[in-house]
């Protein structure tokens, strides 16, 4: 170890020294090979194959026919594909705004150690660990226009009800409701962790200066956890845009049922309609949109504590 250390610190610790060090590094290859092989086979190869497949027509059996860029041109004109993308964007934006906003408020409240804060934290975070399928199905039963428990509750409050899940326009927001109630706990726990890292002296100083609770939250606490909020917002945007579980379990429709999002669109095209090439092209475009969202978001809200990725 000592030898390697001086080697790295020496001014000659460049290309030549690195090449000389390779044989000794071979033993580390044994440590790295299993992870590299596993991810190479089941992650890297499928991504490369997705790119290739998106230029072919294939039913999943038999011959693959080269199709040039026709899959992409068709996607652009496909009304269902465009609707699915719009739904995914709506879903991502609505769920991110509400989960991060509510998550921050709940985290501030729990951080103030209000009475019962432990029970609140337990109850608010528990859904994050539950299977999305469980929550999605229980909410789907609840939203049933005749027998649903949520419908009954709304009638009890005197609010009318409708068959929201079947509504081509509002269905996605009914799904978002269930999703939000799960993921707010995730945003909360991340922001809460950052809040608890703030030194108590800062709060004491603010209190001595006569700064009220609400103002202190807005002017002191929230700016100090800005990076956590940015990170969790980005994660929520990406999770929201690519979410599959909730839409699939709650609506369980098919192509063109009006509540499709990008992930269910890819699923139905490839595995129900057996259009593997078309599904691959849609998956590729969706991944591109994810990358675009991430880049735009990070260029606007780059975390201050993190340097430009090097």
């Amino acid at each position, binding site marked *: 170890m000592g030898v390697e250390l001086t080697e790295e610190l020496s001014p000659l610790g460049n290309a030549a020294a690195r090449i000389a060090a390779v044989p000794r590094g071979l033993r580390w290859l044994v440590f790295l090979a299993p992870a590299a092989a596993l991810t190479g086979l089941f992650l890297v190869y499928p991504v490369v194959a997705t790119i290739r497949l998106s230029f072919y027509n294939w039913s999943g059996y038999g011959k693959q026919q080269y199709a040039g860029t026709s899959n992409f041109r068709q996607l652009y004109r496909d009304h269902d594909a465009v609707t699915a993308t719009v739904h995914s964007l709506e879903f991502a934006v609505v769920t991110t705004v509400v989960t991060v906003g509510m998550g921050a408020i*709940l985290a501030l409240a729990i951080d103030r150690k209000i009475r019962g804060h432990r029970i609140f934290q337990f109850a608010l975070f528990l*859904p994050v660990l539950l299977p999305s399928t469980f929550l999605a199905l229980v909410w789907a039963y609840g939203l049933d226009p005749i027998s*649903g428990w949520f419908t009954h509750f709304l009638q009890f409050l005197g609010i009318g009800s409708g068959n929201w899940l079947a509504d081509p326009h509002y269905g996605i927001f009914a799904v978002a409701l269930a999703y939000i109630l799960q993921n707010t706990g*995730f945003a909360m726990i991340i922001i809460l962790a950052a809040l608890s890292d703030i030194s108590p002296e800062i709060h004491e100083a603010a209190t001595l200066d006569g700064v009220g609770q609400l103002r202190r939250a807005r002017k002191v606490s929230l700016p100090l956890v800005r990076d956590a909020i940015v990170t969790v917002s980005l994660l929520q945007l990406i999770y929201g845009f690519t979410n599959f579980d909730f839409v699939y379990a709650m609506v369980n429709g098919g192509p063109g049922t009006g509540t499709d999002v990008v992930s269910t669109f890819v699923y139905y095209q490839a595995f129900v309609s057996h259009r593997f090439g078309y599904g691959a092209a849609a998956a590729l475009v969706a991944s591109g949109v994810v990358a675009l969202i991430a880049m735009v978001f990070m260029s606007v809200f780059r975390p201050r504590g993190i340097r430009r990725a090097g």
Partner: protein
Amino acid sequence: MPASPRRASWLARHVSRQAAYAGLLVWAVATTIPIWAALTASFKSTSEVISNPLGIPHALHPDNYVAAWTGRIGAGTYYGIQSEPLYRFGLHSVLAVSIGVALAMGTGTLAGYALARNAERLNFLNRYFIVLLALPAIATWVPLFSLMESLGLLASPAGLGLVYGAMVTPLVTVLMRTYFSSFPLDLVEAARVDGASESFAFARIVLPMSKGVLTVVALIQAVFLWNELAVAEILLVTPDRGTLPMGLIAFKSQFASNLGPQFAALVLAIVPVTLLYIVAQGRITQGIRLGALR
């Protein structure tokens, strides 16, 4: 005059505290009400699920749990129809998740250690795993199906376990690399001076000292995979080979007319995770934070 702003601020503080409390209470009820709804409905007859959806059951029907567990949940015109029993879906889940977690912990811990010990030299490999972390799963779906088909692992929960292992290996690798980067190396060096090999030092010194972290990381991967739906739906093809989340969906589409057993199945599906959370709340929240803010 000095009294009035003081009073106003007291009032504002008081009101804001009460409002915050009320808001917190409403939100906590909203997040936990699905559990209450499922739990109460799981003990009701189908007609009571519809007539009294949120109340306490008038008459208890624990047989709903027997029906869900054994899969005999056909009612009405479907009376006597046998579905795949819930425990079978559970076994498929246990198989896929254990293989996935074991693979990812094994390969990811080894790789994370190697990356931490060779931070400079192996930086490009470190970036490889970070890029994989950012990869949307959807970009792998379509070819995964044909890959597993050609390997003869379609409709195989064990085969799904292999894919699960690969899916969480990048996160395990990055988390373990971060942890090992601050691991005290004096002990390893001492062992090396005494003639021990790197592998020996890793197995006998580093691993035993890292049990706590390994447990936390394994737990959150297990919870994540236990809840996974999309890749299972794609690779297990038929519902009777499915995992627990697939089973819940299959129950709903097959036996829509018999609600009690469906809710019993839903409740059974969340028992393991809920128990785990009650026992290891601290470790699990710590793990989720690690995973998000790596």
